[in-house]
């Protein structure tokens, strides 16, 4: 687009030129990084949601099979595992955020998880909306630039849009 503006420099005054550059910079330096970070945040929340849905499924499994003691493998790091014994599965410590863990019974844990999932779903909704708005802003700025450049073909498209 800048090249094109250079091509038509004769017809354009410096003011417009500067304006276009400012808009472009705004898109590149502000809106696009915002968009990237918002998407990353939403991905994190997705991950959390998956963790908790897995946990719920596991606890439900334990409940269904009425497992009271458990033997699993613990990852010590670098894919080195050791056997671990859980004598009592009734009490489970669930991460509630900020590094705190709360001791729950199974039903309490399930209750907490469903609440947590609800909240995570809300967060995801929020982020999705944020992302959509950033995308809309980017589009808006581009349309503004097109208008400044007075591109007839683009304008017709733009008019059909709005």
């Amino acid at each position: 687009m800048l090249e094109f503006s250079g091509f038509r420099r004769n017809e354009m005054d410096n003011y417009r030129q500067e304006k276009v550059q400012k808009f472009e910079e705004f898109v590149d330096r502000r809106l696009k990084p915002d968009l990237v970070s918002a998407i990353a945040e939403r991905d994190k929340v997705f991950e959390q949601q998956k963790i908790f849905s897995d946990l719920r499924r596991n606890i439900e499994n334990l409940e269904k099979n009425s497992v009271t003691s458990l033997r699993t493998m613990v990852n010590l790091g670098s894919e080195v595992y050791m056997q671990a014994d859980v004598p009592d599965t009734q009490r489970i410590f669930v991460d509630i955020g900020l590094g705190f863990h709360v001791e729950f019974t199974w039903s309490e844990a399930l209750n907490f998880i469903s609440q947590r999932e609800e909240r995570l779903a809300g967060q995801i909704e929020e982020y999705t909306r944020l992302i959509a708005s950033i995308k809309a802003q980017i589009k808006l700025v581009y349309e503004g630039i097109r208008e400044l450049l007075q591109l007839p073909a683009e304008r017709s498209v733009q008019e059909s849009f709005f």
Partner: protein
Amino acid sequence: MEEPTVKGTVTPLSSMFPVEDAQRAAKRVVDALSEKQQELNQVKEFIADNTNLIKLVQKLPEELHHDIMVPFGKAAFFPGRLIHTNEFLVLLGEGYYADRTSKQTVEILNRRGKALESQVNSIKAMMQDFQAEASFFDATANEAAEGLVEIREEYVEENSSERVSDPGSIKQRLSSFSEADNTNVEDEEYARMMSRLDELEQEELAAEVDNEVDEDNQNQGNTAKSDKEIYEDEEYARMMSRLDKFEQEELAAEIDNEVDEDNQGNAAKSDKESDEDERAITDFDQFSDQIAPDHNFRHSEELRSSKRPQRTKDKKTSEDFSNNFCRQQDLSDQSCTDLTVQAVTRDIVKSSNAEKASMLPEVKEKDGAVPSSKNEVSAQSSKPGIDNSEVSAQTSKPGFDIQKAFTGSVVEHTPKIQTSTWEQAEISSKPSKPVSRFKMQRR
């Protein structure tokens, strides 16, 4: 020289390497450098993790169990404890896991650490390259910015004015000169080649004469070409006596064969046993288990009781080292005696390894006195004394007359030959060294 024309060219450096380009290139290299730095940091992190894990793995088996919070998914824990603290399941790669003890796990982790170290080294080397590149680009950019110019001038030789004035004649002269030179060189080369050829022919002649002497050796499959002629006669005589011996032995063995086929293998082995390590002996135990169960207990008892007071393995190896020094010399006159034995024993030893793996439990059952773990078996039986003749005499105890005759002949050998056979055998049959079962299976 007559006309003062401009001979060189002057190009400003900035026209060849524009300042911005040079700077951009430098920036790109710096970016690559920082990327490598990140990679390096990551690898260093891995190394730190690895060393921590090694410490942990070493510490865990100190107690029977550790109270921990057992992770359940990523967001939940159960209060529990680690059990079987000396059993680790280690990822080998490609989704294969192995059950290892603490010690073995530490070994694996150490090897991983070494791989990481080499990675660090390679990254560091790459970074050095990039740094040199970056400094070069920076220097170029600075020079271009300062307005440095490059001056190029054709180099013309000015020794004789003739050359400058008449380049054509020089060419001719040059060519003729080089031609003459060439012929000279060719002559010289030809003479040298011819003399070399003569030399080689003479050598070959000499070798043929040698070969005639050697021919008998070769008939026996002796490929040793000793250039020490002093040994030759001696060697030949010894060889002939050996040949006779072996013929007799073979005859005996053939008779034996009719009695029991396994016997022959064992007989040949018992020769080797004298200088081989424990495997052959344990094997012999097994063998006698099968054939003469009556003798077995007595025999193995004798074996062990007589061996314990004998020299330990350390001493044996130390003597081996001393033998190593004369090995080079020996090889030439030994090989004639060895090779005939080797041909038989090599296969046997190999098969006996496999046999051993499968048969060891049997030994355990039959001979209650044998320690329970396989390692111990090999450790104990690896005490064979230096005194080869004694061992061979022992191993031949379970009464087979023909064997006795055979091993008797072994006793007659000079100790020098025996140690050499041992060394040869060691070279030829590595699997018979005390290796772990894991390694053996992997071979």
